[in-house]
């Protein structure tokens, strides 16, 4: 609120010659009231429900607390150390990293290739866009149940593999610890790849056709044109895709929780399923708080670094502009 009071102070001299037309106000205090009314509700909501919880969690994390009775068993940074030392937490973090990397090396190239192929005049292209995008609007919870039904032993996927002569490749999709994480990745891809394709298509629409035409006139092959003109110009969109994919990979929860609860034997656990399993379900609220704070720091540092060092190349990012 101090900032807003500063606003009043600044505006007082403006009574004489107004700094810019239309900003004339004879009562500075009125301006202060306006700003308070406009910013107040959003700031209150944001402070109470976004900023305050992290403070609470950081504080609870210092205690051994099961959610009942007073916070009396102060243990300092013990919970934080326990979380970071827990092999299950480390493997959960590793699973998030695997999902993020697989998205980058598998989803991204496929999305770009598909977007390039679809960026043409086609019959039924609006239907196609709709179909590609449909899984994205269905909730992850529904997607999870849908894939539970499809992946059940002897279910649709198994029958499909059998039908095309790959019956020997049938696995325990959700029960085999060596497979389950990759099953999750496939389902995640099914749900989210359409969003990426639509994003990339929008990026492709923004590239002037003249550039490709000019290259073609100069005798460049279609591949060279794509490689040296289209892809570099698609760079900003690709970097946004990576940013969104990274944030998404960090918070994978719904699918895993409903399909496997992070099992079998934590083989599909992620950081958020870890936090809910060992912090919420086992009523170790102090421990869960410490996990939440660690997750927050990890996501914040990664996303902020990416904003600062990668997206910055495109324009001064919204999140970095104020940090000069």
């Amino acid at each position, binding site marked *: 609120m101090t900032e807003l009071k500063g606003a009043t102070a600044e505006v007082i001299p403006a009574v004489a010659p107004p700094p810019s037309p*239309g900003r004339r106000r004879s009562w500075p205090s009125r301006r202060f009231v*306006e700003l308070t009314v406009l910013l107040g509700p959003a700031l209150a909501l944001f402070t109470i429900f976004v900023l305050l919880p*992290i403070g609470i969690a950081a504080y609870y994390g210092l205690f051994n607390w099961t959610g009942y009775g007073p916070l009396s068993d102060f243990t300092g940074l013990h919970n934080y150390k326990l979380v970071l030392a827990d092999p299950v937490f480390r493997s959960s973090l590793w699973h998030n990293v695997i999902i993020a990397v697989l998205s980058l090396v598998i989803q991204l190239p496929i999305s770009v290739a598909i977007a390039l*192929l679809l960026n043409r005049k086609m019959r039924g292209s609006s239907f196609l866009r709709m179909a590609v995008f449909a*899984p994205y609007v269905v909730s992850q919870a529904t997607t999870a149940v849908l894939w539970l039904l499809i992946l059940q032993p002897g279910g649709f996927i198994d029958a499909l593999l059998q039908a095309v002569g790959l019956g020997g490749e049938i696995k325990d999709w959700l029960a085999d610890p060596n497979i389950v994480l990759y099953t999750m990745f496939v389902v995640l891809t099914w749900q989210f790849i359409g969003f990426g394709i639509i994003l990339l298509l929008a*990026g492709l629409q923004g590239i002037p056709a003249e550039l490709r035409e000019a290259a073609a006139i100069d005798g460049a092959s279609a591949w060279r044109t794509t490689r040296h003109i289209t892809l570099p110009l698609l760079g900003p969109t690709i970097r946004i895709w990576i940013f969104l994919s990274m944030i998404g990979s960090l918070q994978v929860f719904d699918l895993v929780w409903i399909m496997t609860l992070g099992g079998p034997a934590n083989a599909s656990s992620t950081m958020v399923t870890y*936090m809910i399993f060992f*912090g919420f379900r086992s009523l170790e609220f102090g421990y869960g708080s410490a996990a939440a704070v660690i997750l927050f720091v990890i996501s914040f540092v990664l996303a902020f670094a990416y904003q600062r060092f990668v997206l910055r190349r495109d324009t001064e990012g919204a999140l970095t502009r104020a940090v000069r």
Partner: protein
Amino acid sequence: MTAAVQAAPRPAAPAGRRPGRVKPAIPLSYLVALVIVAITLVPMLYVIVGGFRTTAQLNVSPNGLPHPWVWENYKSILTSATFWQNLGNSALIAFVVTALAVGCGSMASFALARYRFPGRDAWYMLFAVGLLFPPNVASLPVYFLDKQIHLLDNWLGVALPEAAFALPITVIILRPFMRAIPGELEDAAVVDGASRYTFFMKIMVPLSRPALMTVAILAFVTSWNAYLLPLLVFTNPTHYTLPLGVSTFQSTYSQDTAAVFAFTALSMLPALAFFALAQRRIVGGLSGLAGSIKA
């Protein structure tokens, strides 16, 4: 300023604006398109069609067509209270979240875009940083807060935090848009004796409609699909939202596979129907979103 100039004029749905300039499709495009449509739609159709079978049919052959087609599964779900209750809870929460996020967010964006005061960029930065804080990661801390202020098992305990977490993207999209609206309009309004309030309601809001629609849809869809926070906050099944209802139904009635098929199919339909109606807006809005984030 570059940000404002860049983000605002970006049309919501740039798709197919230049007919004739786009290369014609090659057979490979159609083949790829066919495969993609099959991969996305077949699993959904499988579940919808599966809902027309009986559990006995499903047990005998998991992948056959319904024979005969039975309406019982769908009928019993549509006549039970659970499905409608879940749907109603989801709708109530999503509408409140959307109203709060768009209401508070547009007022804040207006202040951050059209007023000049010290620390303005820092205030904006505060909201923008919220985008780096994924709601799922925040779920447990938000649960602790709800516990403290006695909002557990109360729909406000879900709606208020969801609205708060919708604010960053709302402000990030709206502020550049409102900034790009020419200052001359404001001057003209002042000359005509309009108050700031009139200017906001009569000029700013109508002119920002495309951006407002985008943020409203984003807030609505995000809330409609949210799972983790409702899971933590609600213990009483009468409060459950649709995503929570689906997963609960699946684990409760796992023996009655046909009913699970039908419930899952029905739970997809509202989202798909809404999407079919607002398709252009949603697709355009989400791809415009990318432009705004970097702007």
